[in-house]
């Protein structure tokens, strides 16, 4: 009945040595089923009639017998293995979460080039710390509304990489049966929509519902700097403030709205736009997950205790193109920002062996997810 919070953000203490070579332990079938059930509350990854076929292909794809064995129940239960890798360490957990999002997005870009994917995608490469740092503080019953650049938020909240991969591949087993695709995702406590602006009043409406029902949970909406151009945003700020709604607005300012720099889009002060409506703002210019997380923790707590709308402005940077092959930004500018990308920043705190082990396990897990997703009907 309960949904599982992102496990990499709250790893359970385990006896495994985090520095040990990252060999994903084949989950016990029962444990895997539990994992799948909790994760798939609203994130059903049905195998259905294609199950047998999937499994036989699976066996061909995976050389490891153990992997094939656990694959039946472990659809969507990737976190079960993840937990063992990041055992007991929040910092390693955050690193793994961000690394996983990064590699998931890079893998998607590769799959596009390979011609496997239909449509488009918007990678959040460079902004992984926002998803990890904010969502770390959310709990069951909270609701996230995300936008076109939603994969990181989705993965951080649900951990359902296979469901998302299958969705983007247009498979029936995708989280929305391949109808929503990259930008239109729904799971327990999570929704995204690709039209800018309109998600703000929607998230506020969800917050209003929480208030009317007397729930103690909150609504969170992620928006980008480009969305500050939409009028619906300001109608929402006004009403959310007037009505004192339990809403956290996370503005990810990545400096570029598609091809347009923020300087050509946004007059005056971002912060002042929110403050004009009487909304408390916390502003952070950082790609450091711990720094972002500490701001987010404070604000999430403030929204919970006061029931009022708060705003977190994160000044960050999008390291890749807006969607695909549409980057005309100065190369030097982008190169400079790669030096402070979230993984590099956070790695400085970690033992090399630890993050390398995590990197290896992420590769292995992702390879398994891609193989499974490819094999799905």
């Amino acid at each position, binding site marked *: 009945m309960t949904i599982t919070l992102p496990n990499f953000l709250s790893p359970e203490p385990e006896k495994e040595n985090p520095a040990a070579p990252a060999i994903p332990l084949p989950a016990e079938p029962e444990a895997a089923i539990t994992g799948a059930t909790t994760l798939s509350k609203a994130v059903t990854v049905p195998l259905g009639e294609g199950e047998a076929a999937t499994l036989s292909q699976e066996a061909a794809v995976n050389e490891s017998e153990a992997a094939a064995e656990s694959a039946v129940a472990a659809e969507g239960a990737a976190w079960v293995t993840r937990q063992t890798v990041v055992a007991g360490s929040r910092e390693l957990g955050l690193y793994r979460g961000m690394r996983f999002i990064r590699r998931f997005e890079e893998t998607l870009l590769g799959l596009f080039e390979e011609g496997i994917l239909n449509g488009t995608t918007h990678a959040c490469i460079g902004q992984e710390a926002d998803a990890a740092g904010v969502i770390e503080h959310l709990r069951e019953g909270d609701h996230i509304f995300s936008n076109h650049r939603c994969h990181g938020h989705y993965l951080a909240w649900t951990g359902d990489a296979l469901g998302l991969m299958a969705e983007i591949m247009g498979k029936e087993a995708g989280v*929305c049966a391949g109808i929503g695709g990259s930008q*239109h995702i729904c799971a327990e406590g999570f929704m995204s929509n690709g039209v800018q602006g309109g998600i703000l009043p929607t998230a*506020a409406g*969800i917050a*209003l519902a929480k208030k009317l029902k007397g729930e103690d949970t909150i609504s969170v909406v992620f928006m980008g700097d480009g969305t500050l151009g939409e009028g619906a945003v300001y109608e*929402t700020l006004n009403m959310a403030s007037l009505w004192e709604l339990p809403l956290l607005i996370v503005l990810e300012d990545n400096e570029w709205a598609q091809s347009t720099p923020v300087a050509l889009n946004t007059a005056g002060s971002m912060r002042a736009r929110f403050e004009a409506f009487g909304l408390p703002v916390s502003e952070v210019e950082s790609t450091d997950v711990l720094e972002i997380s500490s701001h987010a923790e404070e604000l999430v707590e403030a929204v919970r205790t006061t029931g009022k709308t708060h705003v977190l402005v994160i000044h960050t940077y999008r390291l890749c193109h807006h969607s695909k092959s549409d980057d005309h930004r100065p190369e030097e500018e982008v190169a400079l920002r790669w030096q402070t990308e979230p993984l590099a920043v956070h790695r400085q705190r970690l033992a090399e062996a630890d993050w390398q082990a995590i990197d290896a396990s992420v590769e292995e897990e992702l390879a398994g997810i891609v193989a499974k997703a490819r094999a799905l009907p």
Partner: protein
Amino acid sequence: MIFAKELGAALRESLETDERVVLIGEDIIDPYGGAFKVTRGLSTDFPSRVRTTPISEGAIAGFSAGLALAGMRPIAEVMFGDFITLCFDQIVNHITKYEAMYNGKATCPAVFRVPSGGHRGYGPTHSQSLEKHFFGVPHLRVVAASLFHDPRDAFRDFLSQNTPVLYVEHKLLYPQHMRLAPNGLITTREGSTVRLSAVPREDCTATVLAYGYQAGLAADIVEKLAVEEEIFVELLVPAELSPMDWAPVEVSAKATGSLVTVEEGTAGWSWGTEVSAVMSERLFGLLRRPVSVVASEKTVIPSSRAKEGRMLVGSPQIETAIREAAK
């Protein structure tokens, strides 16, 4: 039994019987009670669930979306139906998308009440019948109020299902008496379509399809022509405009051999043209004349009483079309 009061009673019943119901809109709280007084008294009894908003139709629609996604039952009042354009993004790209694009993992049963229509001299931007822009939007129901349909039935139905609804209320209905059992005409019901005629269908020479305020005008003409000139036609008044329940129309027009549609919206790409297209396909060769589509002139709605009267569909245009179709 005045329509506005019956509608207010339907909203009160909704609030009383369903704790998920939230009324949201501009100026809807007491003592004002809405621009057309439909919600008067409700905020006093349900202060947290009857919420007056700033002049922010986009947010009214967006908040409704969020409420509905979170399991509530928002009923939004768009003060003048003309302002529904400011909700268009929410309705087309958000509210009607969610259930389908999330493969049924969410529903968004928001209801929009749109006081529409002219004949009151409010001019180009406060008199329109804009529902034509919403006909055919996938996963949206467009439902028209009329004097022949009890609004309680409508709202009971809206609250018992999950499809978003645009509920069109012609402003001239508000002060009128309900005609749930009109004198002089035989009234029967097929689903949400009301059938009115002075004589049995076999003796009718045309079918008239009209909704909302125009349905009342058409009923008067049907009765007058029957009594005064023994011209017999059958009037169909649907509540559901999109998607349509085609069966009653098809059966009736097949029997009478002639069909007229009536709407107050502007001509072209309209409800009537869709009816005409569908019936041409279903009844090809079975009608003795082309479907006649009565709609308003394709221009702005003048404020001048005389000019407005000429431009908008009213009794004269309806009568002329019925006489022609009944031949």
